[in-house]
C-alpha cells in the first residue's frame, strides 16, 4: 500500500535499546487460542519512558512478560516475531542466558507488591538476593548494598525496613521495595506493569516521580504498562496504544494525547472522566471489548465499535500509517484511497 512506512528501522544509527518485531504471543487454552499479542512492533530507545496503554485484554501485560520470557507456560507461548535487545533476539536465547539478563539488564516491577514479594523473607534479603546473583557479592556486603538502594528509592530508615517482612509495610513502601529490587543491578530496561494501580492517589504520584528520577539519574529506559492515560501524559515520552492484542497507535505522548489519530484512541480519551470538565454525561465507546478467542484474522478488531468503519475494515488488517513525526496509527482513514473505499 502506498504511503505506508514500517515503524521499525533497524538500520537507523543510535537505534533502539529494545525492539519488538511483529511479536505474537498466544495462549492455548481449552476454550481456544487467545491471541493475546498479535503482531506488535515497537521500539524503546535509550533513556526514554515508553508508555504501553490498553484496557483489559489488550495484551499489554503479555507483551511485558514476553520480553522477560516469563510467560505462564502453559498456556502462553511466543509463536512468532523477534524481540531484539541490544541487537540480540531474546526469543531465541537459551534459558540460562536469558536468566543472566533478567534482573540485571532487564528487570520488572509488578502490579501487586504485596503478593509479588515473598511473604516469608525479610525485604532486605529479597533485595540483596538479586544483587548476589548478578554481582557475585557475598551476602553481607550485598545486604549493605541493598540497604543503600532501599534508601535511594526513598525508604526512610532503610536499615530497619530491611529487617522487616512485606506484610509490615504500607502499599507504597512495598512498591518502593519492588522498585529497589528491580533497579539494584542498574538495568538498562525497567518494565513496570501497572506499578501504581492499587495505590492511593497521593502515593501514586510519589511512586511515579520516583520512576522518573530513576530514569533521569541512571538513564534507565522504562516500559510503563498502564491503563491510565493521565499517567502516560505525566511521565511518558512516547506511548503505544494497544487494542485487542494489536497496536492501534504509537507516537510521542504529546502527539498521541493531543492529536489522537486512531478512532479508538480518540474515543478512549473522550471517555476519561476529567476533573477539568463539566458535570454530566461522558462520551462512550459503543459495544464491548471483543472476546479474544473469537477474533477474525483479517480485519481491524476495532471495526464493530468504530464510527468510521467501512467494509474494508472488516476484510483487511490495516497497517501502521504515518500521521506525523514518529507518529503512526493503524487505520485505513489515513490511507490515500480512503475517500474512494467502500
Amino acid at each position, binding site marked *: 500500500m502506498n504511503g505506508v512506512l514500517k515503524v521499525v528501522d533497524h538500520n537507523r544509527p543510535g537505534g533502539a535499546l529494545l525492539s519488538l518485531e511483529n511479536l505474537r504471543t498466544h495462549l492455548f*487454552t481449552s476454550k481456544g487460542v487467545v491471541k493475546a499479542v498479535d503482531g506488535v512492533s515497537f521500539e524503546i530507545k535509550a533513556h526514554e519512558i515508553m508508555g504501553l496503554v490498553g484496557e483489559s485484554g489488550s495484551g499489554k501485560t503479555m507483551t511485558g512478560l514476553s520480553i522477560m520470557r516469563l510467560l505462564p507456560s502453559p498456556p502462553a507461548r511466543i509463536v512468532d516475531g523477534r524481540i531484539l535487545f541490544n541487537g540480540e533476539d531474546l526469543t531465541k536465547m537459551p534459558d540460562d542466558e536469558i536468566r543472566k539478563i533478567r534482573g540485571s539488564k532487564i528487570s520488572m516491577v509488578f502490579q501487586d507488591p504485596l503478593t509479588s514479594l515473598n511473604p516469608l523473607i525479610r525485604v532486605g534479603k529479597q533485595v540483596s538476593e538479586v544483587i548476589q546473583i548478578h554481582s557475585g557479592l557475598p551476602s553481607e556486603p550485598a545486604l549493605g548494598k541493598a540497604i543503600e538502594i532501599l534508601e535511594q528509592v526513598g525508604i526512610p530508615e532503610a536499615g530497619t525496613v530491611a529487617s522487616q517482612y512485606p506484610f509490615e509495610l504500607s502499599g507504597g513502601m512495598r512498591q518502593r521495595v519492588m522498585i529497589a529490587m528491580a533497579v539494584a543491578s542498574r538495568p538498562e530496561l525497567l518494565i513496570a506493569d501497572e506499578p501504581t494501580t492499587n495505590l492511593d492517589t497521593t502515593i501514586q504520584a510519589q511512586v511515579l516521580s520516583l520512576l522518573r528520577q530513576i530514569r533521569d539519574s541512571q538513564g534507565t529506559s522504562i516500559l510503563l504498562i498502564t491503563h491510565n492515560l493521565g499517567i502516560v501524559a505525566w511521565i511518558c515520552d512516547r506511548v503505544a496504544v494497544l487494542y485487542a492484542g494489536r497496536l492501534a497507535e504509537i507516537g510521542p505522548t504529546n502527539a498521541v494525547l493531543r492529536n489522537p489519530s486512531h478512532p479508538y484512541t480518540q474515543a478512549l480519551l473522550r471517555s476519561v472522566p476529567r476533573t477539568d470538565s463539566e458535570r454530566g454525561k461522558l462520551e462512550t465507546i459503543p459495544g464491548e471489548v471483543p472476546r479474544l478467542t473469537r477474533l477474525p484474522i483479517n480485519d481491524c478488531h476495532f471495526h464493530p465499535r468504530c464510527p468510521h468503519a467501512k467494509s474494508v475494515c472488516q476484510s483487511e488488517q490495516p497497517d501502521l500509517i504515518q500521521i506525523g513525526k514518529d507518529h503512526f496509527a493503524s487505520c485505513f482513514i489515513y490511507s490515500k484511497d480512503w475517500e474512494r473505499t467502500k
Partner: protein
Amino acid sequence: MFSREPKLVEDSESARPLRYEVLAILSRDRIALVALLVVIAATVVALLAPYIAPFDPTQQQLAGSLKGPSSIHLLGQDELGRDLLSRLMYGARVSLLVGASVVGVSLLIGVFLGALAGYYGGKVDSAIMRIVDVFLSFPGIILAVGAVAVVGPGLENVIIALILINWPGYTRVMRGETLRVKENVYVLASRGMGASDSWIMRKHIIPSAISPVVVLATIGFGWAVLAEAGLSFLGLGVQPPAPSWGGMVSEGLEYVLIAPLMALFPGLTIAITVWAFNMLGDGLRDALDPSLRI
C-alpha cells in the same frame, strides 16, 4: 485483586453451581472419570447383588473348600467352599451402605454445626469447636474400635461409631469455609437488601461453602469403606456368616499360606474401591477447592 488483565482461563470453573463444575472437571480429567465409573460399577453391583451374584454367598460347599478359581467359581472358593465372587458382591452392599450412611449423616451434622459456628462466631463457635477439638484429639480409628467394643459388634454400631468420629472433621471444614464465604461482598449486599440470617445461610453461605465439604465427603466415603473393612477384619463389623470385605481378608489370613488368593481378592477390591473414591475426590479438589489440601 482488581487485575485489569484477563484471567488466563477465561471462564473459571469455580464460578458456577456445583453440578456444572463437577461435569466440567470430569470431562477433562480422564483418570477421575475412570474412578467415577468404578464407583458407579461398585454401586450397581451392590444394588443388584441378589440378581447378579452367581451363588448364595452363605451357601457352603465343603467339597470345594479352598479351591482356586475355576470356570464356575471365577475367583475360587473359601474354606467352607463358598463362592468368593458372590461374597465380594454381597460384601459391596455392606461397604457402600456404611460409606453412604456415615458420610450422609456426618455431612448433615457437619454442615449444620459448621455453618452455625462459622456464621455466628462468638460463644456458639467456641462451644461447638471445643467439642470438635476433644473428638479430634483421639486417634479416630481407636475411638471407633472402642465405641464398637462398648456397644457390641454389628453393622448399626459400626455406622454409629464411624459417624461419631467423622462429624468433627466435616464441621471443621464447613466452619472454615463459612468464615471465608461470609466475608464475600455478596453476603453484605444481601444483608443490605434486608435478608434474614436464615436467608443468607440458605441462599449464599451453604451453596458457596459446600464444595470443599463435597470433596471431603468423596474422600470420606473411601475412608469409611476402609474403616468398616478394618473393623470387620477385627471381627467387630457384620457378623459371620454374612460376607464383608474386611471379614473376608481376616478369614483369608488363616489360610494365607495355602490359598493366598482368598485374602488377595477382597483386599484388592477394597483398595480399588477406596482408590476410586479418593481419586474422584482428588480430581474434584484440584479444580474445586484450593483451600482443602489434606
